[in-house]
């Protein structure tokens, strides 16, 4: 497992060396969202009894930042290494597909958790947010980071150019996170859009994570956990398949 630890270490060092861009910047962005949206929408009715809109927004924003940064970590590392050609240094080694997958995904989870935690700490200074079931919150944070880390691995392997990766990010990741109920409860949507939201796996990550704070969600947490775990398994299997066959990596 020595090779795995080294690849994980390298991936962590990679984002840590540019932490201003990879950690501080997304925390600032989330803070801006909070200030602007909570100010613009402060007159909205409470979504859960006793929970202000600003407080409601905090876990969603933290989760959104976590997911987007987990994806950005593995996908950008792979595409940069592919395009600059230095992925060869990993491909020449005895690292197995599982070791590669775990190293890239775990580094993505760590970056996601770091950003997510940063967002929570900063925003909780501004507003009171209860933490009723921390274990649920941690479980969804880790699984969400893992899913987006795996999606980043898949997108990083698939994309040949930066603009293909940007398209994946702009047309898949960002819409799915924004439409996951970060800024609203899906119960406030018309029936059709409520149903559509239930087809979005990101909704379950956000809803389950929010349950960890308020003890209430749009669907029961076990349902969310089931969907999220299923996604994790499916994406893990796909990533391992791509790495084992050498799709777009080994000709």
């Amino acid at each position: 497992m020595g090779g795995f630890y080294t690849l994980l270490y390298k991936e962590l060092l990679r984002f840590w060396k540019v932490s201003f861009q990879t950690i501080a910047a997304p925390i600032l962005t989330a803070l801006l969202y909070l200030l602007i949206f909570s100010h613009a929408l402060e007159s909205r009715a409470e979504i859960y009894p006793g929970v202000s809109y600003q407080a409601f927004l905090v876990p969603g924003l933290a989760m959104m930042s976590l997911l987007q940064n987990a994806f950005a970590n593995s996908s950008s590392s792979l595409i940069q290494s592919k395009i600059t050609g230095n992925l060869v240094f990993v491909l020449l080694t005895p690292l197995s597909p599982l070791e590669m997958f775990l190293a890239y995904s775990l580094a993505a989870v760590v970056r996601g958790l770091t950003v997510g935690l940063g967002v929570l700490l900063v925003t909780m200074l501004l507003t009171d947010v209860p933490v009723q079931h921390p274990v649920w919150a941690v479980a969804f944070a880790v699984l969400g980071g893992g899913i987006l880390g795996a999606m980043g691995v898949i997108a990083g392997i698939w994309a040949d150019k930066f603009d293909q990766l940007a398209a994946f990010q702009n047309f898949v990741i960002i819409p799915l996170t924004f439409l996951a109920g970060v800024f609203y409860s899906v119960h406030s949507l018309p029936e059709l859009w409520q149903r559509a939201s239930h087809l979005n796996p990101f909704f379950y990550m956000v809803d389950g994570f929010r349950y960890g704070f308020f003890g209430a969600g749009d669907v029961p947490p076990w349902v969310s956990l089931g969907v999220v775990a299923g996604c994790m398994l499916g994406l893990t299997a796909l990533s391992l398949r791509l790495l084992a066959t050498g799709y777009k990596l080994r000709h």
Partner: protein
Amino acid sequence: MPAIEVRQASKRYGPVRALDGVSLTIESGEFFGLLGPNGAGKTTLISLLAGLARADGGSLCVMGYDVVRDYRCARRALGVVPQELVFDPFFTVRETLRIQSGYFGMRNNHAWIDEIIERLDLTEKADANMRSLSGGMKRRVLVAQALVHRPPVIILDEPTAGVDVELRQGLWKFIRELNGAGHTIVLTTHYLEEAEALCGRIAMLKHGRIVALDETANLLKGFSGVRIRVRLEPDDLPAQLVHYHAGDEGALRLLQVQDYAQVEEVLAAIRQAGVRVLELEILQADLEDVFVQVMRAQ
């Protein structure tokens, strides 16, 4: 046990047959040259050995390990210096080497890393970021990365392309020492004089096939012919010599003859024609002649 054994390896890229049934055995401890024009299949063969590409047919082994079935052992046994000047801009030279060593599960490899840093003249740049290095320095780091896990087999894919003379000489001294210590070296290069000076055996590839494979000395011996470079006054070649004419280099005429006995015939013909010799040089065959002849013959 052979260091490298390739049996009937083939590889296609779309309609292009990059490798077409190549078989090759390289014994442990050899200094082996892989020559051929661009697109001959040298880099494809190296990619198959290194696991960077998968063969469509045939099998390849490094130190007895199949590169697909036993890929972990095969890759541990192999160090590859890639042709492209690639690097990771996030790290320093020392970090790069420690990370590369770690990938092979060797985490306390500091003494050897220090040694290769010193041997490749990288000491002053050891803690500099890779981005700040010159091309030649980056090439040295590539060599260091290939050696970091002490592989018994080292493949260098055009390691001296665009490298200054001093580094080239230093690099070959180091590689020769590694060869002397028992490492098998496989080299591709466009500098034929390098291959001639270094390689004990040479394979020439063209269109994905091996077109010549022998000891370097035998290849040179087998190349029949001597060349005469001559400047005459008047400039025109005497009629008896026209069929020896193999080209011109400025005012110099190149004549191709079978052996030294024919050199005498050429000189006699010049004397008989009453032509003055201003310059005359007799040239031994070198690897370049062999290369050109083999490539033309195919």
